[in-house]
């Protein structure tokens, strides 16, 4: 009888497994939509619901902001605390007769000066009121083009911040051919063949939340970044780690985004444990400046902020 029970038990287990397998829900990643919430959104977008609240509240808020006047400057320095991480190994295996001649090709993803200043940190501010000198550029503007050059298989500008619609002259000063590929998340992508000595025009079509990668498909170690913003409230730290953004509106809450290509936050956001500025894990802080104020920030970056 005991044997029968064991056999029966095994049979039961086998059949139960068969019964349950194959009935699993279809694989779908992420949370399933909430039907009622989806329907509400649909009604709203179809215009069947009069939108209340946000639109009515907006002008009032704008009126409150517009009463503020005056302009201010935000500046500061990023300094590394601790030791810079070891440079990455680059595999320079192509066109070696040209690439990295002289100084050689070094990993420039994290440049720390002798006084621990950190270069190539990008900052931009989101402000409601915009000073005349920082207004967006129109399409087809006559602003002087920025030259974005490459020599000995390195981009001469590693991180370039500019305004939307700014003309950029993508240039190749090498005796060999390159191609330049720019991959913005929102704007028009670019990937042009660049014969020796040639240049091709490009201008970013949209503002981005984080810098776009610039690369060369022929020489995979070549890497640069482009940060296009509509208004002129951006800066890239100099080799000594300093930056300055002028003519920011005073009297309003300004959000500042900070980025470095090796930042550990999402998309490279630079996350500091700075309690005074309430630095977020998205690499942002808010600041309110007084008219004619020059706010100077001394920012300490621990080595763990870099990946």
């Amino acid at each position: 009888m005991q044997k029968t029970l064991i056999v029966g038990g095994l049979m039961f287990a086998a059949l139960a497994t068969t019964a349950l397998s194959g009935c699993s829900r279809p694989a779908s990643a992420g949370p399933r939509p909430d039907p009622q919430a989806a329907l509400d959104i649909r009604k709203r977008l179809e215009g069947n619901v009069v939108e209340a609240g946000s639109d009515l509240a907006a002008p009032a808020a704008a009126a409150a902001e517009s009463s503020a006047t005056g302009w201010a400057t935000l500046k500061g320095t990023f300094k590394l605390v601790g030791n810079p991480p070891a440079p990455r190994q680059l595999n320079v295996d192509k066109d070696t007769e040209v690439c990295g001649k002289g100084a050689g090709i070094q990993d420039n993803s994290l440049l720390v000066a002798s006084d621990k200043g950190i270069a190539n940190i990008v900052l931009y501010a989101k402000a409601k009121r915009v000073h005349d000198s920082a207004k967006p550029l129109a399409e087809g503007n006559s602003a002087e083009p920025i030259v974005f050059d490459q020599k000995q298989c390195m981009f001469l500008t590693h991180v370039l911040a500019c305004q939307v619609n700014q003309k950029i002259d993508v240039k190749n000063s090498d005796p060999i051919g390159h191609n330049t590929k720019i991959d913005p998340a929102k704007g028009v992508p670019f990937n042009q063949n660049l014969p020796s000595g040639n240049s091709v025009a490009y201008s970013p079509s949209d503002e981005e939340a984080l810098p776009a990668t610039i690369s060369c498909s022929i020489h995979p170690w070549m890497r640069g970044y482009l940060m296009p913003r509509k208004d002129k409230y951006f800066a890239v730290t100099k080799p000594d780690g300093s930056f300055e953004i002028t003519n920011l509106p005073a009297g309003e809450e300004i959000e500042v985004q900070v980025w470095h290509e090796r930042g550990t936050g999402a998309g490279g956001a630079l996350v500091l444990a700075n309690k005074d500025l309430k630095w977020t894990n998205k690499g942002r802080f808010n600041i309110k400046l007084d008219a004619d104020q020059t706010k100077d920030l001394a920012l300490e970056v621990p080595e763990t902020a870099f990946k």
Partner: protein
Amino acid sequence: MNRVAFFRFVLCCVSPLLFAGCGKYDPPQFSLNMVAIAKQQLPFDQQQEVSNILDGMFGTPDKPFVLGQGKSIADSETGLDPKKLAVAAGPVRSDEFGRETGLYRRHCGHCHGTTGDGLGPTAMLLNPYPRDYRPGKFKFKATERAAKPTRADLELIVRHGVQGTAMPAFGLLPDAQVDALVEYVKYLSIRGQVELRLIDAMAELGQDEKLQLTRANLVDEILKPIVESWNTANESIIKPEDKPDVELATSIDKGRELFYGTKGNCAKCHGPSALGDGQTSDYDDWTKPVTELASDLRGEEERLRTDTDLSNEDRVALKMHVALASQALKADSLPPRTAQPRNLRQGIYRGGRRPVDLYRRIYAGINGMPMPAVGPASPGAKGTMEPDEIWSLVDYVLSLPYESISQPPHHQPATLSKANF
């Protein structure tokens, strides 16, 4: 109780289980783009919001929806025809007149996936992987690099397939069915691109800020530019200048010079013998988010192991993201493969073998790929090659499969006979 009766009893108890739970139709769901979500580190409530908005704007795989009910198709927000979508969507079936619906799931879904993410059940067996429509980038088309394909481009791919890949030719489908499928691919692509924009918009929000679900934010800001790019594709068709009247041998010689020189740079990637072995370590734009997320994940795991100063709060946050990222990589991506430059000696051209197809490939490059453009980057700008030079390159590339070293070696009867007897 004897043994037979006992077995009967067990069988009676168990057999209903075999059928229980299998009868209910559980409609398939669209998946979220978890790789993009993990890259932007969206918290769960924002993932839920993205899911709700997409369902509101686009419906489900069984019941697709497009905004602008009651308006004409041209006036509607997406420009998509709900009737065509209804034919392509839903489960596979046909009515008493033989009219078929569920065409996408019948012909496409097993490779391209229900969501159009290129993650169907057969996808991982294929090389190259099936196209993921969600980034809104298409490789083989007649338009400028960054432009969307035209309707005719997509129809051509559906009808003729993509040579050298698993994409078969659906030339036997009636025109109306091809038309419906193309409409559905557009629908999935627009939906996927809206999803990516939504994820980015969520990531841009400040602390405690919520995305206002208004027409201005969702339709005007996100949906409209994407639809606009589809609607204007016809304006960016590349129309090559006539081929100059040059002797073929001369043109081929000129093409060879460009191919190997520093002007064309072709050999850098296609290799010194045009075998496609010059540069094989790069990834295409569909794979890059996956490789980047994988590299982020490795760094985070390393940090969890080595960084002893992490605060408890940071450690929990890091662990949560590690879990999200590894799940996304496991369930929402395929093992990354590098982009392979084409072996030009085989005479297999994925985007079509007509000279005009090759001209457009060289002129605009291949969208989403390392292959760069030699034509102007924007209308009115100057490219790095003249039309007659592009035509010479076309002639040279088309001549490559006919060079003697491209032919397979002849077998040698003498050696064979020695081996066999």
